């Protein structure tokens, strides 16, 4: 399985580097106030995911991973950021992102989440026969960080970006722990993400029309 043309250690080091950048970007998104920078960070995260998937595909000679990498590139690096940028322009919202909890507190909570993620993932990492032992903990940490971001943001667009970043973390987990899932499943997931994004887009306009704002806090009719 490990028919390599590059030394294995170099590849695994590269992937570990990607994992570290993923985590860093996760924190950067958590701390980012500006919506445009947030979209750019999301695009960067997609790019890192693409690179790491590509390296795994190259190292392990799993041809279907090239397709998965291609999907990541077209969907998460090109299509989704483009759609988001367009949406922002059409809705003419360039405001700063408001957070419900202040950012330093969020960062501290984020650190705690990373510690938890590494603890949870430890038994799995020990079993992992893949070239990327430590990465599953990082992937779980990315998922939890996006989760935190979703909770602490009050506007619709950052919530969606957090949702998509969570999907990035999950894909990273899939490639790092298992060399990617079977093709049919990955295609299905990509389709769901795409359709979901279209619905999100429609919703943005509807919500704006109804509430004159994309602030989710305006939607508080259902207080128990």
């Amino acid at each position, binding site marked *: 399985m490990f028919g390599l043309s590059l030394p294995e250690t170099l590849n695994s080091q590269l992937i570990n580097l990607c994992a570290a950048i993923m985590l860093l970007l996760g924190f950067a998104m958590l701390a980012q106030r500006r919506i445009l920078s947030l979209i750019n960070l999301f695009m960067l995260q997609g790019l890192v995911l693409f690179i790491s998937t590509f390296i795994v595909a190259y190292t392990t000679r799993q041809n279907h991973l090239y397709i998965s990498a291609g999907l990541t590139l077209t969907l998460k690096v090109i299509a989704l950021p483009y759609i988001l940028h367009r949406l922002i322009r059409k809705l003419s919202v360039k405001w700063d992102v408001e957070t419900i909890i202040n950012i330093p507190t969020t960062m501290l909570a984020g650190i705690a989440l990373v510690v938890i993620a590494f603890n949870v993932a430890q038994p799995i990492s020990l079993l992992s026969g893949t070239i990327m032992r430590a990465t599953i903990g990082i992937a779980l940490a990315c998922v939890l960080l996006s989760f935190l971001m979703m909770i602490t943001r009050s506007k619709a667009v950052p919530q969606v970006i957090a949702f998509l970043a969570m999907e990035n973390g999950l894909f990273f987990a899939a490639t790092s722990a298992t060399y990617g*899932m*079977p093709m*049919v499943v990955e295609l299905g*997931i990509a389709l769901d993400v795409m359709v979901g994004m279209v619905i999100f887009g429609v919703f943005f306009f509807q919500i704006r029309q*109804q509430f004159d704002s994309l602030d989710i806090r305006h939607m508080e009719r259902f207080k128990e």
Partner: protein
Amino acid sequence: MIELILVLAIPLTTSLVLAFIGHRAYAATINIAGSLLTFLAAASLTNRVVRFGPMNLLDEQFFVDPLNVFLIALTALVGFTTSVFSRPYMRVEHDHGRLSAGRLRLYHSMFQMFMCTMLLALSTNNIGILWVAMEAATLTTVLLVALYRTPESLEAAWKYFILCGVGIAQALFGTILIYFAAEQVFGHTQGAMLWTHLFAYRTELEPTVLSLAFVFMIVGYGTKTGLVPLHNWLPDAHAEGPTPVSAVLSGLLLNVALYAIIRCKVLVDGALETHFAGNLMMGFGLLTVVVPSFYLSRQKDVKRLFGYSSIEHMGLITFAFGMGGGVASFAGLLHMTVHSLTKSAIFFAVGHAAQMAGTQVIDDIKGLIKRSPTIGWGLMLGTLAILGMPPFGVFTSEFMILTTAIKHYPWATPILLTALGVAFAAMFSKVQGMAFGESTVRPLAHNPALLPVFLHLGLVLMLGLWIPTYLNEWFRQAARMVG
């Protein structure tokens, strides 16, 4: 094999056809015809499975055994009756100007697409495709919940989207973990995601990874089932969507999500040879029975009231499967059936009642029986049935669950009984006020289709009095698989 292809292809084709002509006057009839054909195909598939046993189809990508074929048949049946109910209901909504022709087209098309995704989730053998189908079901229902485009419905749909999106992302992580465990045994092949393969080699899978995976799975699919504390989206989505959608959400989607959890439980407890997954389900189940029963008395909206009641019943079913064993699993399956029949019947009656009153506020709906005895009594009998009054089937299944609990987990019995009692007091008084008294409601412009209400209640009554032998055998087979 042809039956299974038909079960999936008919709703898909109908959905595509309705995407173009769904706004025409005859679209509702096509909707009914498509659902009827799906039901006939499902019935024939059921017949085959009950007679010849489980089967793998299409290169093992699909798997039909007594457990899921029972849910396929139930889904197709309730889908059919809901489409019958929705014809006059949607006509009234259209006449009142709440829905444009374009929205009606979206509704018809998405209704069939939703049926298709649920049937795919039930019949697939691949746990990855199961996830994809569940996510697709979420997306279609988000569109259906937001159909009226009112601020409230948009809020409900957004909440549903975000909460279930997060939930289902956890389920994907759980799926990845199971695949990871399986990959150690099977290598990197398609087979490592097929449930039948996983189940056959369950003892060789790594137990720590599996138990971790189950935690993610129950949180993920539990969000869709409406397990407390992840239930927040459910009452809103039920209250704000059109009533046929509330009926299929409560009656079908919750069952499908629960089915995913049950499949995982069978796998994980089979591999661990402990009762870890079962205990987790019992804990979530008990919490889910108790919490909503105390919310019931505070509800002002009739559809929210029954939404909370659905959460409570899902808790009861989760608890039953968590206990495990022949009787409890049998009771869980029976309760799934009777709950989905009764709850959809109630929503049919509630939908027309709300249309007659022009509001969903409980206090403003009065004297239904005086104006329309069929709708009034339909609602009253349905409520009595769902509250577990004999001789309806809900009583039978609740009785079986309680007696099993007394035998194996006596401490849980008083908690369950209290919750059921509180729910009875809250719901009965509210519905009584709606059914009896001086009438404030107007008659409907179109004749309501009330056959589905009484068909469902009739079936529930039959299941309470006498379970036919073949059905009994079928439930037993399925219960044995759940263990």
